[in-house]
Structure formats: C-alpha cells, structure tokens
C-alpha cells in the first residue's frame, strides 16, 4: 500500500482526523444544515449522508492512498476545516448532478483507442450492445434524477407566493447578478434583501429537512 507523505500545504491523515474530532458542536450543526441545502438535487437523500461522503473522500485524498473506484480530496491545512468540508459537499453534489455526462464520456473513451478510432478489441456487436444498453440504463437513471431535481426546485418555488421578492432575488442570483445589482434592480434595502434571503433559508429548513418535502 503506497501512502504519499503529506505536503507542507496538505494535512496528514492524523491532522485531519484530529480536526474532525475537534469540530465544535456549533460547527457540526452548521455542517448538518449546509449538508441539507447541498443535498438538494443530488442522489443524497439527507445532508448527513453527503457530509459523511465528504469526510470519507477527505480521508482518502489526504491519505494519498486512493484505490480503484475511490475518489478523494486532500485537505489543505490553510483552509478552515468547515469551509473545506462544505466545499467537498458542494463538489460531490455537483458531481452527482453531472454524473450522466461523465458516464457517457467514460463510455465513449472505452469504445475508442487513444487515436480516437474504434477500439479493435471490441467487436461491432459488443460496441453496439454495450453502448445502447448502458446508455438506456444511464438515461433512465438520469431522467429520474432530473425529474427529482426539477421537482425539488419547483417545490421550493411553490413555497413562495407569486410575486414574492424571493423569486426575483433567486432569478437575479441565477443570472449571476451581484447582491448590489439585485437590490438596485428590485429597489430594496440591504435589510429587506437579508430578510428575504433568511426567509428562503428558513422556509427550506422547515419544509425540506432532508431532500424531500415534509
């Protein structure tokens, strides 16, 4: 088992384990809440599962001992452990949403040689069968996920009345506008913006404690 030594920037497994053990109750609660938000639209039904996966990948990445099929992310010591685990969760959740495209890319890679020609190791029948069957299964899986995510987004939107400023703030944020630009466009004060944002968070807390609606 080849284990890489930690670099000056990256922590060792012992340092990571110690940092996880030393998380304060308040930090654990924040990670719990963050996990629930980030699990929306992903394959994780609860934020705690997403957080567990983030810790698992951090351990794998930090140990440098990544086995086949495992994914890891080392912890750079300069980054606060809560911020690091939150980013891990975001990355895993995003990866889960994009997994269909990755699966198709991997399959396309397997079916061709490095030069981009058809892989001579596979017969034509194998090519067709492998690609069609796998793609059908993946497409079905992805359609299910896509539907679930669209349902989640629609369900959250429905929690706010038509014309509620929360919708407009969400639209502005989705369009990549800055907070100041959104406030200016909507003609609202910083306090009104903060109140609407808090209302969004607290409404989701109450109605979607996990991924699904209560």
């Amino acid at each position, binding site marked *: 088992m080849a284990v890489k030594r930690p670099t000056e920037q990256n922590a060792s497994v012992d340092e990571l384990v110690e940092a996880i053990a030393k998380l304060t109750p308040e930090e654990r609660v924040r990670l719990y809440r963050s996990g629930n938000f980030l699990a929306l639209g992903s394959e994780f039904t609860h934020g705690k599962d997403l957080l567990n996966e983030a810790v698992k990948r951090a351990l794998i990445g930090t140990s440098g001992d990544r086995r086949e099929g495992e994914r890891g992310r080392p912890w750079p010591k300069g980054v606060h452990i809560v911020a690091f685990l*939150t980013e891990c969760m975001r990355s895993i959740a995003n990866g889960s*949403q994009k997994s269909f495209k990755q699966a198709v890319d991997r399959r396309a890679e397997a079916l061709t040689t490095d030069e981009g020609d058809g892989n001579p190791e596979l017969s034509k029948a194998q090519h067709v069968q492998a690609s069609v069957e796998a793609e059908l299964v993946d497409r079905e899986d992805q359609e299910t*996920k896509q539907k679930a995510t669209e349902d989640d987004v629609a369900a959250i939107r429905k929690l706010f009345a038509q014309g509620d400023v929360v919708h407009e703030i*969400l639209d502005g944020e989705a369009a990549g506008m800055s907070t100041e630009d959104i406030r200016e466009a909507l003609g609202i004060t910083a306090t009104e913006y903060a109140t609407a944002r808090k209302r969004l968070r607290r409404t989701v*807390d109450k109605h979607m404690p996990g991924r699904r609606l209560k």
Partner: protein
Amino acid sequence: MSNESMKSLAAMQALMLRDLEEASDEQIRAELAEDGLDSDLVAREVAESLDSVVAEFMRNRVAATKAVKKATVSPIEAIRPSIQKIKEIVQRAFEVEPNLASAYRNGTKQSDDDWISTYDDLILLGKVDPQDHVD
C-alpha cells in the same frame, strides 16, 4: 437536469449558505429549537456519524496493511506475553495513537481473544515490538 433548473438550484444553495454563514451560533441554536430539534442532540448525532466514517476508514486501512504484512511476518504466538500485559501494551499503543484506536472501536466489551487479536495486529502493523515485552 435542465440548465435552468441547475442555475436555479445553485442560486438557492448559494443564497442559503451565505445566510447560514452570517447567522450567529445562538441564532442557529434558536432556529433548531423552533424546528423542534435539539441542537445538542443534532451535534452529537453528527459527531457519532463522522466517528463511524473515520473508524471504518481506519479499519479498512488496517485490514489492507495486515493483509500485506501477514504474508511476510512469521507467526508470533510463541512470543506473546500474559493477557494482563497484552492489555497494558494495547492500551498504551492506543494512547500514543488515538486514531489507531478508532479502527478497533466497536462499542462492546472486549474478550481476551479480542485483546490478543488486537495485540497481534499491532505487531503486524509495526506499532508494537514483541521483543520489548517478553515476560
């Protein structure tokens, strides 16, 4: 997922995470209570859950190392000290490396066989030198 849904979801998450970041610890505690959740219980459950992930990771690594070492290290049965001494050696090794202890934590009372097995593992892993503990 349509591009629009993805952007909408990312916007929701970004707004909620920024708001959570700006909320004070007292505020979050009060919100959990408002939602019928005990903040201490949530924190404890998260700790236990993370502890299991760490323990599983350590167990897997120990098992992999053992598998490699078993093929090269000779049997050690003949040089085991007394059970009392084994317990002391194992406890001392865990005090020095608490992370190693998590790999063996299972919440149950340890039998003598468990202690012996753990002692053997620690020798295989190079954490204990049997020559240092001959009775």
